[in-house]
């Protein structure tokens, strides 16, 4: 008896017992959930497993980067959604980084008006829910004039309620691609690349929202570089732009990259808001699949797995980059 009491007195032993109890509890709850779900699915006559992926999807998807018809499988439909998610995330990350960096730099510029305007932008955008902003963007895009009265801000760029049409590259000739300029034909455009109104609204929303956060991160990063660095660069005759580009930003990066990573993850994780304005991203497509097959558990697990992979991949990439920009010291 004394031996057992002594054992109980040991902190290590007590810790082990508590951990065993917690693990046991988790397994019990998990097992109960699985059993319960399986019984329910069986009662409603819903099949389990990933067999549905090979069946015909039977629904159309409004935009796709690869050929797709309703006769294709669920697997292909989900792939279309995944590619759309990757496209919007990648473009969102690139544009948000460019705009965010520019705004962050301008907030610190000597130009009072510029700095103020950028400050207002950051505060306004950061404090309004993204979903609301998406509705605003979608509203703006859909109230644009029709194709015949399209806005033509740059040569070859048309903005109308058909979306944004930009020049594309035509590779069909083999060898060097030729520039494929869009032109009006009847009530729509031919040639070039067309971004749907939904895509344009989602991209604008994600970009403008994320850029505001990135601007703050860039600003903090620049402020973290000691003033002496700027003075040394200026004393050597580097211009303001060169000082920023060659001396300040490279050092600011080590402060910028870690929080930037989480913003990049946020772009990806915010992209499912696409569903609110009807852009067929992975989540929207899987939602349709769930409605038709009832196989929510498998679909959600699949989508979660995919997002986990994207996030982990992105994190790994950014960690590698962060190591590269780290300063060497003793």
């Amino acid at each position: 008896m004394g031996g057992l009491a002594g054992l109980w007195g040991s902190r290590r032993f007590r810790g082990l017992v508590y951990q065993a109890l917690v693990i046991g509890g988790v397994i019990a709850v998990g097992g109960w959930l699985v059993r319960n779900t399986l019984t329910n699915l069986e009662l409603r006559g819903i099949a389990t497993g990933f067999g549905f992926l090979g069946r015909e999807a039977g629904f159309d998807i409004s935009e796709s980067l690869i050929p797709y018809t309703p006769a294709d499988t669920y697997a292909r439909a989900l792939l279309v959604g995944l590619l759309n998610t990757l496209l919007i995330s990648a473009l969102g990350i690139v544009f948000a980084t460019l705009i965010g960096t520019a705004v962050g730099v301008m907030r610190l510029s000597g130009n009072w008006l510029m700095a103020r305007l950028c400050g207002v932008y950051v505060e306004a955008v950061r404090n309004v829910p993204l979903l609301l902003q998406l509705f605003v963007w979608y509203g703006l895009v859909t109230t644009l004039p029709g194709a015949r009265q399209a806005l033509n801000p740059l040569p070859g760029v048309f903005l109308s309620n058909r979306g944004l049409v930009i020049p594309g590259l035509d590779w069909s000739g083999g060898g060097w691609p030729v520039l494929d300029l869009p032109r009006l034909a009847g009530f729509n455009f031919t040639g070039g690349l067309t971004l749907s109104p939904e895509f344009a609204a989602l991209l604008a929303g994600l970009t403008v929202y994320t850029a505001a956060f990135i601007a703050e991160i860039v600003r903090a990063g620049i402020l973290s570089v000691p003033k002496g660095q700027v003075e040394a660069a200026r004393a050597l005759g580097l211009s303001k732009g060169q000082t920023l580009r060659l001396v300040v930003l490279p050092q600011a990066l080590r402060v910028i990259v870690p929080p930037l990573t989480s913003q990049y993850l946020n772009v990806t994780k915010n992209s499912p808001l696409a569903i609110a304005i009807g852009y067929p991203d992975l989540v929207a497509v899987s939602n349709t699949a769930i409605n038709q097959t009832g196989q929510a558990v498998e679909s959600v697990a699949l989508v979660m797995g995919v997002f986990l992979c994207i996030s982990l991949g992105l994190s790994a990439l950014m960690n590698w980059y962060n190591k590269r920009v780290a300063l060497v010291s003793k």
Partner: protein
Amino acid sequence: MSTPIIEIKDVNKWYGEFHVLKDVCLEVAKGEKVVVCGPSGSGKSTMIRCINRLEEHQSGRIAVDGIELGDDVKAVEAVRRRVGMVFQSFNLFPHLTVLENLTLAPVKVAGVAPREAESTAMALLERVRIPEQAGKFPGQLSGGQQQRVAIARALCLKPAVMLFDEPTSALDPEMVGEVLDVMSGLAAEGMTMICVTHEMGFARAVADTMVFMDEGRIVEVAPPAQFFQSPANERTRRFLGKIIGH
């Protein structure tokens, strides 16, 4: 005497309400070595930072090699090409190697070919006696080594004038000597120098002219012998008494 390479005439500067430089006048001839000393906050750094326009003066005239400093960006660039500066805190670029620190300005500002900039840089590293550190990053060097790299970096654009703002104040005592040696070498080669420093041994050995500042004014300008033996001004005497001690 030839025209001075640095002319400072009736310069006044304010930080808001605070009058930092009061009617400052100083002329430095080509090849002259000027050592500036004075109590903390007397405006020594501010004065030499006005010479390459890291600070702007509000009235009076500052000209380097005949180029007057003002709002003209081209003039400021031209002056910065002629003036090298060494800071108390080294301010080496930590993300670049020693060699890259030295070649950055020649390549990006003066448009020198990278190969040529590198051979000039290596020659300068030989001169400050650390050629073997060329591939290291500043964070891997001792303070004394970093300051010698900083001197080499300032020399890369072949400046006509070198400004030093307390170059040894941030160093451990055992490293002060190696930096002062490099500076003495530079002086011996005929470089025009303005040094803010309280290293009085160095001042005695190297300076042609001693300048004493107090409360934003230049209070005394004299050759070292006279400056140390019989300072004319009461404040100079008190300051020297404190700094040389005993």
